[in-house]
């Protein structure tokens, strides 16, 4: 048997299926394109093009390429840091993907009964890597080409191409192996295995926080063997004093790491697919299935909505991975707030409030269609089912979420020394943001649904790009608050600024939140049982 051909065939077929799925939902393809474009523009940075510098003034690979001849030591130091951090970040994301991916849950029967197991595993791995490459690839290629263009020497491209390939391959494979290893290790404990999404997300969150907050972390990584890949990236860049020993070591280490990672992936995937270690017969403790909020439900909402809320909470408790993105806003913007707390503490309460309000909409409301997919025929053939489901998901998020957001606003506002009137305004704005956030979340989730899951009837995390779109929308909705409360912290008339900010936030939140909810309701109404919309 030709192993490489078999692996390539498995990879190609699985990936074709994935691409066809994305073609069925063109908005997903557009979101990938948008994400890859943004990532590429960020790494390429400013370019000497008319008007472009005003559009994108941040320096990037091109800028540092132009400095390579005049400031070679500084550019080399930066390359070492960027390479090391990139490996850690790519590995972190790859490990999280491996921890949560459904591809590693059950063996694909059509493969394991047809080809040798290692070939099946490597074929599945190839598909996973290709999926990641749709985002990482353009960023790496764009960065390498921009740097080469900046140096003005074509020979530079050899080093950047080899270096970028090594960084991406190492990050993806080592991360996948680490994620699968972690998953295998906790497989014996059903409780821990069920919580792997939360554990993975928290670990990633802490890693990114550490990298974002501390410049020292990046510098320390650059001094580690991971920094060798900076030398590899610039190995053929004229005038840059790279250490040839480090370049050779980087290449040798990459070979060793890739071989070890592949072996580890095969071993751990085999164990995950075939080891019957999860002893869970599905029995549920009757008392444990009740929530502390349930006594309030009957008084707060209609019985139909209460039924959906109750079911949603139970489902979340038993499929916690659906909430995996709740922590991510903090991971993405947490470091900035920590820095701000030192330089501009007045901004912190409104930032924390915005993060908390956004987090409330990052759960099941961000994938209303995907979380109901197999149940849609039952919901749509139930009187008022559509409304009940949307209301139910919203209330299930708001009931625990809104008090948390208000508490966050009050506590941070008090610590931030807000005037009582400003604090009251912040609480009102927080309530508007959290309620509107759920409406926005429903709308974005209906537009960018994740309709794939391990089985048709489980909760699934929202589409990654839905999360980014939602965060973008929320930052727009919260912009009056950011500006107004920021001004209140430093301006002469804080009460007026806070009042204006609150009024504008409430108005904007009401408009956007309502629009989001209405869009979700229309989409659910139009949704046809065969997945085709009218």
């Amino acid at each position: 048997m030709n192993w490489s051909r078999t692996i390539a065939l498995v990879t190609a077929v699985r990936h074709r299926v994935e691409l066809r799925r994305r073609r069925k939902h063109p908005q997903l393809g557009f979101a990938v394109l948008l994400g890859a474009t943004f990532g590429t523009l960020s790494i390429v940075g400013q370019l000497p093009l008319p008007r472009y510098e005003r559009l994108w003034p941040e320096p990037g690979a091109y800028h540092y390429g132009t400095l390579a001849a005049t400031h070679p030591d500084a550019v080399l130091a930066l390359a070492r840091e960027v390479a090391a951090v990139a490996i850690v970040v790519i590995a972190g994301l790859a490990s999280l993907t491996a921890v949560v991916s459904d591809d590693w849950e059950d063996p694909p029967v059509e493969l394991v009964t047809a080809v040798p197991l290692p070939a099946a595993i490597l074929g599945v791995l190839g598909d996973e890597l290709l999926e990641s490459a749709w985002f990482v690839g353009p960023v790496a290629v764009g960065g390498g080409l921009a740097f080469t263009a900046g140096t003005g020497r074509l020979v530079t491209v050899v080093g950047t191409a080899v270096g970028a390939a090594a960084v991406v391959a190492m990050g993806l494979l080592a991360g996948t192996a680490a994620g699968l290893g972690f998953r295998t290790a906790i497989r014996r404990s059903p409780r821990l295995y069920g919580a792997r999404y939360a554990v993975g997300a928290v670990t990633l969150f802490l890693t990114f926080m550490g990298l974002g907050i501390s410049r020292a972390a990046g510098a320390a990584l650059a001094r580690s063997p991971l920094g060798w890949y900076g030398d590899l990236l610039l190995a053929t860049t004229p005038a840059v004093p790279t250490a040839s020993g480090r370049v050779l070591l980087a290449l040798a280490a990459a070979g060793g790491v890739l071989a070890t990672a592949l072996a580890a992936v095969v071993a751990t995937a085999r164990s995950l697919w075939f080891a019957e270690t999860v002893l869970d017969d599905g029995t549920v403790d009757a008392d444990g299935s009740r929530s502390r909020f349930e006594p309030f439900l009957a008084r707060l909402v209609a019985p139909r909505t209460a039924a959906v809320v109750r079911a949603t909470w139970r489902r979340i408790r038993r499929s916690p991975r659906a909430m995996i993105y709740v922590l991510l806003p903090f991971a993405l913007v947490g470091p900035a707030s920590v820095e701000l707390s030192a330089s501009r503490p007045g901004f912190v309460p409104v930032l924390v409030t915005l993060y908390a309000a956004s987090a409330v909409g990052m759960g099941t409301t961000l994938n209303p269609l995907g979380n109901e997919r197999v149940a849609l025929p039952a919901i749509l053939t139930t009187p008022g089912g559509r409304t009940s489901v949307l209301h139910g998901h919203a209330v299930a998020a708001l009931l625990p979420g809104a008090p948390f957001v208000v508490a966050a606003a009050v506590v941070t506002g008090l610590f931030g020394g807000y005037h009582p009137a400003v604090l009251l305004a912040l609480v009102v704005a927080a309530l508007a943001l959290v309620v509107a956030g759920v409406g926005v979340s429903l709308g974005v989730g209906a537009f960018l649904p994740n309709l794939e899951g391990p089985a048709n009837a489980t909760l699934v995390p929202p589409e990654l790009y839905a999360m980014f779109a939602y965060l973008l929308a929320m930052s727009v909705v919260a912009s009056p608050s950011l500006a107004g409360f920021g001004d209140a912290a430093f301006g002469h008339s804080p009460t007026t600024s806070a009042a204006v900010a609150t009024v504008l936030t409430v108005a904007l939140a009401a408009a956007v939140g309502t629009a989001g909810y209405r869009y979700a309701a229309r989409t659910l109404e139009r949704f046809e049982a065969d997945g085709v919309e009218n």
Partner: protein
Amino acid sequence: MTDLAIETAGLTKRYGDETAVDDLSLEIEPGVVYGFLGPNGAGKTTTMRMLTTLTRPTAGTARVVGQSVENRDAVTPHIGYLPEEPPIYDELTGREQLEYAAGLRDLPEEAACERIESMLERFDLLEDADKRIDAYSKGMRQKVGVIQAVLHDPDVAFLDEPTSGLDPRAARTMRETIADLADREMTIFLSTHILPVVDELADTIGVLHEGRLVAEGDPETLKRRAEAGAVADATGGRTLEDVFLEVTDTDEYVDQRA
């Protein structure tokens, strides 16, 4: 007009150039078990989706208990639907799923609990009622799906392959349940490939082929007509399977509606 449980006239569904259901006209009385047969891809599921308001017809009209299927809010209080894949959540237990369905239908809590208990007992699910559905077998999921579809005593129940995945004992329970429901004046629109089930239960059979209704009548009439139109088999009689194969012959079919 409103006396009929289901009435369609010229019902048609097209997806682009492809016609899934073509000019379908049905008249089904209340309390009838209507066996809906047809080969794979004949348009059975599409028909059920139109009748349950899940897909809009391209042309023609359809009424369920006198309500137009264009008006979802008017139709849904009267129907229950079991699609091919039971619409249930893996994370819930069987009992929680049924309580959820009862809540969504706004059924009185006490009565719903009693009904759920009795249906769970009937389908031999009581022992597993507090286990999560993701630990259920295919047959157990199917049972939960069927109970959910008829929990609220709908006027019309649309059941797509209700005996799929059931062991012989469970399949018999399912047949008995369907017969009981029909005795209580519930109209059952039953789509299945298992011909003996239809033979045993159906008052009327409709055979769909390439989107068109090619035969309709009670089982005995259909068998007699087939007998008259063809040479009897070795046993001297014709089975429903013979009828099915004859009227769904892809080369040529003859309209044999009663």
